[in-house]
């Protein structure tokens, strides 16, 4: 089921994200998905060697989720494949009935666990979206005809609404929309007022936006993200909230409360929510419940 169809129906689209393991055993991942996500979210993103850390492939994991009755979103980065491999994988996804793509540039290879790898970046998020659109019209990047019925996808992209250079991000968002992006998932939001301001500007593009949530696990994680993760800033008051009752935070209750609160505050300004649980998939049901969904 294409995400765009859900947005068109006026659904508040709820998605979550899973990261494939560093190995090929996905029993644990499938268990988490069955237990906590199935029936609760519209679709599940599968990350593509997230943070440049080598893992099981996104496409293979998407197929496993599809076979399990879930609706996968195939994340594609431009870091590891040139345009030939990207196009080939897009066709492979179509073969398996995967019709949701999320097109990203990807983190640089030097940030991951194989920093010696060659960074590819033959395409980037914008030209990848352009490519998918081109393939949907029946030709490859170079203009050669595809055999048979062309594939059709929901083409997603990402944006950082709380970036310290939000104007530069908006310019990129516009380029993505022009290139074919039909929905956006955002980087983690901890400052609803910044998100709402961003949405006031972003709504001119006329594409649905899903609020990004990363469950804050503890104060250390929040501080780490502030120092190292682009586009994220956790306010001091929230760090204090995570520090106030250590047991409650450890049990995940504080993180769930903060996440649900952000969703509630932003819900009227966006068209969905995307929860990046980072291993805390078990908290997703509580967040959705507390947020009133």
């Amino acid at each position: 089921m294409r995400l765009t169809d859900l947005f068109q129906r006026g659904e508040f689209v709820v998605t979550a994200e899973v990261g494939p393991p560093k190995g090929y055993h996905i029993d644990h991942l499938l268990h988490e998905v069955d237990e906590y996500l199935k029936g609760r979210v519209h679709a599940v993103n599968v990350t593509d060697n997230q943070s440049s850390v080598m893992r099981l492939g996104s496409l293979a994991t998407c197929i496993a989720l599809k076979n399990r009755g879930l609706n996968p979103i195939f994340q594609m980065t431009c870091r590891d494949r040139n345009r030939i491999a990207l196009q080939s994988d897009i066709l492979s996804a179509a073969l398996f009935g995967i019709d949701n793509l999320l097109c990203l540039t990807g983190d640089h290879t030097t940030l991951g666990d194989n920093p010696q790898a060659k960074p590819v970046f033959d395409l980037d998020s914008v030209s990848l979206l352009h490519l998918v659109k081109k393939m949907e019209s029946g030709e490859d990047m170079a203009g050669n005809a595809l055999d048979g019925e062309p594939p059709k996808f929901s083409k997603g992209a990402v944006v950082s609404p709380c970036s310290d250079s939000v104007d530069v991000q908006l310019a990129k968002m516009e380029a993505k929309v022009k290139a074919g992006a039909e929905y956006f998932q955002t980087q983690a939001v901890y400052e609803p007022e910044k998100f709402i301001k961003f949405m006031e500007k972003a709504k001119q593009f006329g594409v649905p936006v899903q609020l990004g949530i990363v469950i804050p696990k503890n104060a250390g994680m929040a501080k780490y993200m502030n120092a190292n993760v682009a586009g994220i800033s956790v306010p001091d008051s929230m760090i204090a909230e995570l520090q106030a009752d250590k047991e409650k935070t450890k049990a995940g209750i504080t993180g769930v409360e903060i996440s649900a609160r952000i969703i509630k505050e932003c819900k009227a300004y966006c068209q969905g929510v995307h929860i990046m649980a980072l291993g805390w998939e078990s908290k997703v049901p509580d967040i959705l419940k507390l947020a009133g969904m």
Partner: protein
Amino acid sequence: MLITQLKSKEAIEALVKGKVVIINCHGCKEVYFPEHEAEELQKELAANGNVTTVVTTDYICNPDHQCLQLKKHMDKIADADTVLVFSCGVGVQTVASFLEDKKVFAGCDTLPLPGFQGVTPLEFDCGRCGECYLNYTGGICPITACSKSLVNGQCGGSKNGKCEVDKDMDCGWERIYRKLEKLNKLDTLKYPAKVRNYNHPDMVSEDN
């Protein structure tokens, strides 16, 4: 320009077997060569092994010049088991091609470095992409100023205006955006998706 760095002492010692001829190229305006370090290392090699001669020249990559320079050392070279060349990769290849029956080894690793020795500053680099983007980007090169050489705008990895790869490096696309903003030319960035063309038949690829 290029910069040559000595390989590790262990790596070089492992290459040196039997009688050794060393060839140093003190270069050209394109290559920076670590003369002092090379000299120190070669002194140690000579003390520990059988270095029969050291030839120091320039422009070793020019075949005619090389031929002339090596001519007077050909007896030593003919007698040597190994020829160890301290030069950029071009120099080593020229020597290996000229001395086709000899074991010719490189004593250096060669890396690219922006600018030209003593001529242009290091902070401006041309990626020699063959499809100049500078007219779109306020005169700041996205190929060399962006770690990912992105041509369609900033990625999500910029934090406080710095690049995700190196916190001391300004984000190239932040610079481009601010420059165009200052010039009141932000509309320049509203171009359709750009796709790099790596197929330049008349250009020998220098990227890997």
